[in-house]
């Protein structure tokens, strides 16, 4: 903004206005995602009211939250990897794997449930470690590495659970995906809080720095290899958590239900304003994106759109979101 324009304004208003514009521009992608979420929510309520003749109640809210949890966890993990200019296509395989392990090993005792949870998260982290080492130390392209490990993880998942089955204790379901009340919102809040802290940790700063400029990050003393590996490890762990949520809400295991999460996690983070070129975006955006993705599915369901067309609309919404986000980003930069 030219300085003459500011000259005739009161002196006090200047910094406030700047801080506000700055905050808006900095968080534009997340705000845009939030706007999309609100629009889809309003549309959803309107269509629900029109077709069901009453407002969506506790059941609908609980189902939506429980449906979103696995995707929200996977999207938060995908965000971390994409921030480093990478991509994790093996998310679906890790979800398959953790889902299968949980369904086969969970028993109805507190010891078993906590032990299995920790074990599954560690296995997810180990899977992420393999990805991270191949990408950062092996200097291979993320998209190729994770395409190959996706195949490996899917194979392992089917070995563990050849047919859909296994069982998840009712208590475990109640804890992770309570069918009676949207308790899972606690986990969403937890994920958000973790991101808030992570963003300010040295690792979080390192991951964002790598995404912006790996060379500059390295020159400034950031251990690029370590930060990159950690991004994949955390993504693997979050994907495994997603698999646990999925098993809990389905009360059973299926070694192939995770497959769709690879693409949907990417859709979610793009809707959530994370830049695929790295360095820009937040896990909160990814989580909001996950909610939008599920809302769109709900919206189409209650609008009685033929379910077969679902992926068509998902694709169209994805494109609209990307084009809108880049358009608004462009306008914001031009004004700033």
């Amino acid at each position, binding site marked *: 903004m030219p300085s003459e324009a500011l000259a005739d304004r009161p002196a006090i208003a200047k910094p406030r206005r700047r801080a506000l514009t700055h905050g808006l521009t900095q968080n534009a992608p997340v705000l845009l995602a939030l706007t999309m979420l609100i629009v889809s929510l309003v549309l959803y309520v309107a269509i629900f009211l029109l077709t069901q003749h009453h407002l969506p109640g506790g059941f609908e809210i609980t189902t939506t939250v429980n449906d979103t949890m696995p995707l929200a966890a996977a999207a938060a993990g995908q965000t971390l990897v994409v921030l480093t200019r990478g991509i994790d296509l093996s998310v679906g395989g890790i979800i398959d794997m953790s889902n299968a392990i949980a369904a086969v090993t969970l028993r109805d005792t507190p010891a078993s449930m906590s032990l299995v949870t920790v074990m599954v998260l560690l296995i997810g982290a180990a899977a992420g470690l393999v990805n991270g080492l191949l990408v950062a130390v092996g200097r*291979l392209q993320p998209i190729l590495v994770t395409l190959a490990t996706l195949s490996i993880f899917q194979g392992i998942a089917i070995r563990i659970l050849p047919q859909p089955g296994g069982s998840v204790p009712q208590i475990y379901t109640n804890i992770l995906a309570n069918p009676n009340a949207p308790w899972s919102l606690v986990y969403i809040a937890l994920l958000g809080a973790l991101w808030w802290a992570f963003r300010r940790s040295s690792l979080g700063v390192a991951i964002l720095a790598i995404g912006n400029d790996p060379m500059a990050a390295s020159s400034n003393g950031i251990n690029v290899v370590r930060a990159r590996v950690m991004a994949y490890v955390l993504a693997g762990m979050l994907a495994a958590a997603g698999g646990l949520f999925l098993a809990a809400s389905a009360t059973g295991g299926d070694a192939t239900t995770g497959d769709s999460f690879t693409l949907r996690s990417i859709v979610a983070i793009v809707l959530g304003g994370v830049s695929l070129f790295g360095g820009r975006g937040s896990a909160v955006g990814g989580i909001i994106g996950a909610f939008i993705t599920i809302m769109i599915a709900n919206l189409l369901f209650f609008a009685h759109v033929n379910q077969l067309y679902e992926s068509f609309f998902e694709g169209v919404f994805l*494109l609209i979101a990307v084009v809108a986000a880049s358009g608004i980003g462009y306008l914001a930069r031009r004004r700033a």
Partner: protein
Amino acid sequence: MSVMAMRQWLTVGRRRVLYACGAAILLFAVGNVLRPGFAGLASVEAVLVVASFVGLVAAGQTFVILIGGIDLSVPWILNAAAILLVTSSLGENIRAPYALLLTLGMGALAGMVNGLGIALLGVPAVVMTLAMNGIMQGLTLGLSGGMTCSACASYAPPLIQQAVHDRLLGIPMALYLWLAVILIVSFVLSLTMFGRATYAVGTNPRASYLAGVNVSAITVTLYALSGLFSALAGIILVGFGGQASLGMGDPYLFQSIAAVVIGGVYILGGRGSYVGAAAGAVTLVTLVSVLLTMNMPDYGRSITYGVIILMLLLLYGREEAGS
């Protein structure tokens, strides 16, 4: 040829094509030990025919990877093409030419939309083609009613089935078609302005733009070609199998990318050749056949597949240090 000239001829790219061919021959040898007769003529021919399907898709994938892009919309453009061919031809020869044009046009159009989104709207290639895959999937499923439409059960016109299955001088027509594609694509890439511009854009889009290359037009054309080749593969596949089915395109995404990479095309663009990708397709399909010969269960194949791709990548897919 002197040693010096030999060294000069053996560039990194050519060496990788040789590695891919060597790996294929080695795999045939291994397969022959596991099951005598695996390297026999009939079996080699079967492998090559299957490889030609992967090879056709890989042609389009090579084009877009050469400019640092990627085409994730392969599975459902291929699948949509297969279904569109049978539903528009209804298995009648007289409708075959119209159905062929319609199907190829559909593939090229979908690819062109990909290219326009990437070149003009600045959508990242991964997102654009991912969205296109979803759009094609939704349209295919929705319009065919989940493959329940009465025309969906039609067979491919006998003309097209014959064109794939017939033999000329004892060799299946599918292989002649692939040979023609290899020659044409290689010619276009190495000996035309368009091909040189493709490599230039892949190496440095900004420099090529400043040098007067129409980067947007090249991008749109390459993605349109990729869509066209996916549709062509769908047509050949439905001619080979007789009928279309849902999900028939799914294996071709992973396989086409893997073939291109095994064949030494640099995933960030600018380097590589279609001959390499074709050799990569043969290697990959031979590998799958060997695993099938070993009676390995599905999960084992999936794991081995991933491990071998990783090993090949570690052997020669690494980026230079410091990049």
